[in-house]
């Protein structure tokens, strides 16, 4: 860990929308390359980066499409930059192949997705949280990644910094999953002095070329290999094919198994270090509302109203959607009568809660088609129903 670069960090109190706060988070985290292709409601992120980068030594390129945008940043990372791309809905679908490529090549990178209502072009520019399962499973094959869900412009800043840090620490693609409301709402965002912002630098190997460095070798007691960049004399090979520790393609089952399991285990076995959530009023809770993003702020109203009616209800807010805080939810499931899961989709994360709860207690989804946020009353009614 080191400190943020003061030259880029916009220390102070600002009124920013979530998209712009993401841009500032990226800059504070040391991101100096971004690629993008316009799509509402995400474009403000790259609009701000394209204005700010030339003043802080960064480079932005608007590519011809999301297929290009989603791989240009990976090239930049192997060139030694910290890099991100930004999109929403249809663009996110187009980026899936490269999220898989980033996962198998263990390229530390950040994808920001400001979710809008789908499927397909859907309801452009209107809010949704419908990409949650795509975030987890969208690319083909087995891999793990990290997905963070801010619920305010402040968190857009904080979690974007966090996203870059986690990407470096685990050599995975990290997704910042906003929704349109969080992306477009303007609130106070406090950006601390650079020395108070912790930044993870890329873990470059200390071995020199010729000393037997292997690009995909778990070493020094970590499942996460160290990196090098192009041009440093290591003559690396990076491929999306199944590869051995040197990075050479090796089309056989044992190599595939070893590689796949490490890609999975480096996240699963480090889940305790990655998983983040926020809990409120859980001490006496009989009902727990599990929510994330903008929905958590609507749910707050419902929770307050239910408490006023004497229902012992608490809140569990997902900050990491992936890895899912399964230990914490499983633990709670032994104590409470019901989980209420409001989300701006027809029940995606509710499936995950059901999986983890495994029938021990009731799970009540509160689906919503998106386009608007829930009416707090809908959530309140489900809370009341769940204790009846």
């Amino acid at each position, binding site marked *: 860990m080191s400190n943020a670069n003061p030259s880029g960090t916009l220390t102070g109190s600002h009124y920013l929308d979530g998209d712009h706060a993401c841009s500032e988070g990226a800059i504070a985290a040391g991101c100096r*390359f971004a690629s993008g292709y316009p799509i509402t409601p995400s474009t403000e992120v790259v609009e701000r980066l394209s204005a700010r980068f030339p003043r802080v030594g960064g480079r932005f390129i608007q590519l011809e499409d999301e297929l290009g945008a989603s791989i240009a940043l*990976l090239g930049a990372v192997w060139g030694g930059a910290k890099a991100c791309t930004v999109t929403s809905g249809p663009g996110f679908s187009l980026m899936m192949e490269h999220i898989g490529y980033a996962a198998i090549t263990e390229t530390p990178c950040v994808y920001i997705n400001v979710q809008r209502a789908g499927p397909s072009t859907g309801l452009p520019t209107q809010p949704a949280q419908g990409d949650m399962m795509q975030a987890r499973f969208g690319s083909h094959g087995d891999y793990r990644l990290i997905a963070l869900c801010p619920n305010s412009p402040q968190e857009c800043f904080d979690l974007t910094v966090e996203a870059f840090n986690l990407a470096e620490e685990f050599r995975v693609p990290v997704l910042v999953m906003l929704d349109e409301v969080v992306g477009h709402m303007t609130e106070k965002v406090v950006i601390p002095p650079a020395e108070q912002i912790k930044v993870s630098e890329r873990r470059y190997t200390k071995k020199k070329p010729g000393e037997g460095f292997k690009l995909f070798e778990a070493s020094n007691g970590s499942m996460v290999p160290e990196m090098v*960049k192009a041009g440093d004399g290591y003559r690396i090979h990076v491929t999306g094919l199944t590869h051995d520790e040197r990075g050479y393609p090796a089309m056989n089952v044992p190599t595939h198994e070893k590689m796949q399991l490490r890609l999975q285990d480096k996240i699963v076995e480090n889940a305790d270090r990655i998983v983040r959530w926020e809990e409120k009023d859980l001490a006496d809770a009989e009902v727990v509302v599990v929510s994330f993003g903008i929905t958590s702020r609507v749910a707050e109203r419902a929770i307050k109203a239910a408490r006023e009616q004497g229902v012992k209800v608490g809140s569990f807010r997902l900050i990491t959607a992936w890895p899912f805080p399964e230990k914490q939810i499983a633990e709670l499931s032994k104590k409470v009568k019901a989980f209420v899961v409001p989300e701006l989709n027809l029940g995606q994360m509710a499936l995950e809660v059901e999986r983890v709860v495994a029938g021990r207690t009731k799970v009540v989804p509160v689906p919503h088609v998106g386009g608007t946020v829930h009416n707090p009353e809908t959530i309140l009614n489900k809370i009341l129903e769940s204790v009846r």
Partner: protein
Amino acid sequence: MSEPVKPNPTSKYLRTERLPSIWCPGCGIGTTVNCFTRALDGSGFDLDKVAIVSGIGCTGRVAGYLNLDSFHTTHGRAIPFATGLQMANPDLKVVVYSGDGDLSAIGGNHLIHAARRNVDMLVVCVNNFTYGMTGGQVTPTTFQTAVASTTPYGAYEETFNLPRLVDSCGGVYVARWTSYHVKQLAKSMGEALNKKGFRFIEILSPCPTLYLRRNKLGEGLDEMKFYKEKSVIKNGASTTETDLDYRKEIVVGTFVNRERPTNVEAMEARMSEVLGAKYVPYESPGKKPAWA
């Protein structure tokens, strides 16, 4: 006792531990790689600073055999990957090496825009008129009436003239050779390596396994003889006159060699002009090797 075998001068550019390659006997891809290593040999470049990027396909495997920093990316996306790599680390000499389907079909949009922007990279396109790795399907470069596995009655769409395409998009160096023209190709690759901006070399090359066999055109060697007989070198030819036709004359040569600011030069000029002293130029991470 037999004479000791002289080491092949190209070996030091190859990951010899990965040989033999996956390529079929008589395939032209290896020949083009040989020319490329000769061009590198004459270039005097620090090879640590040369990076090669490929897409997917038989030609896409070139990256894995060259002893350089190498990236085997996704199908059609070598150019945007290389764009990010080059922009983030301008101290690298970036080369994209891929097949005709990869670069002109799935990757066509990236090809035209990288040429338009004049991104600083050399793109080498091995054009075997077919999708090799997936079994010989039709590509944008397949000639009309040639048989491919997905045009069993013969291709009927217009054939892409890639030099003309790249020229019209603004590429600064555009050449076409065949894998018969090893000397000219190596020289052309050397010239292109030394230039800045978007450079494009198309190499017509046999795929005996799929294209030649299916069209009853003989072995790889027969195709070489065909290239020898049918090629006409016309350096400086207008790319409007370099269309290819099935089994007809092949115009080869260096067609375009012009100067134009690269995308990064244009960006820097614009930013300096508008922002003046407020412009903070990008600092290449490549200047400081990790072990220094």
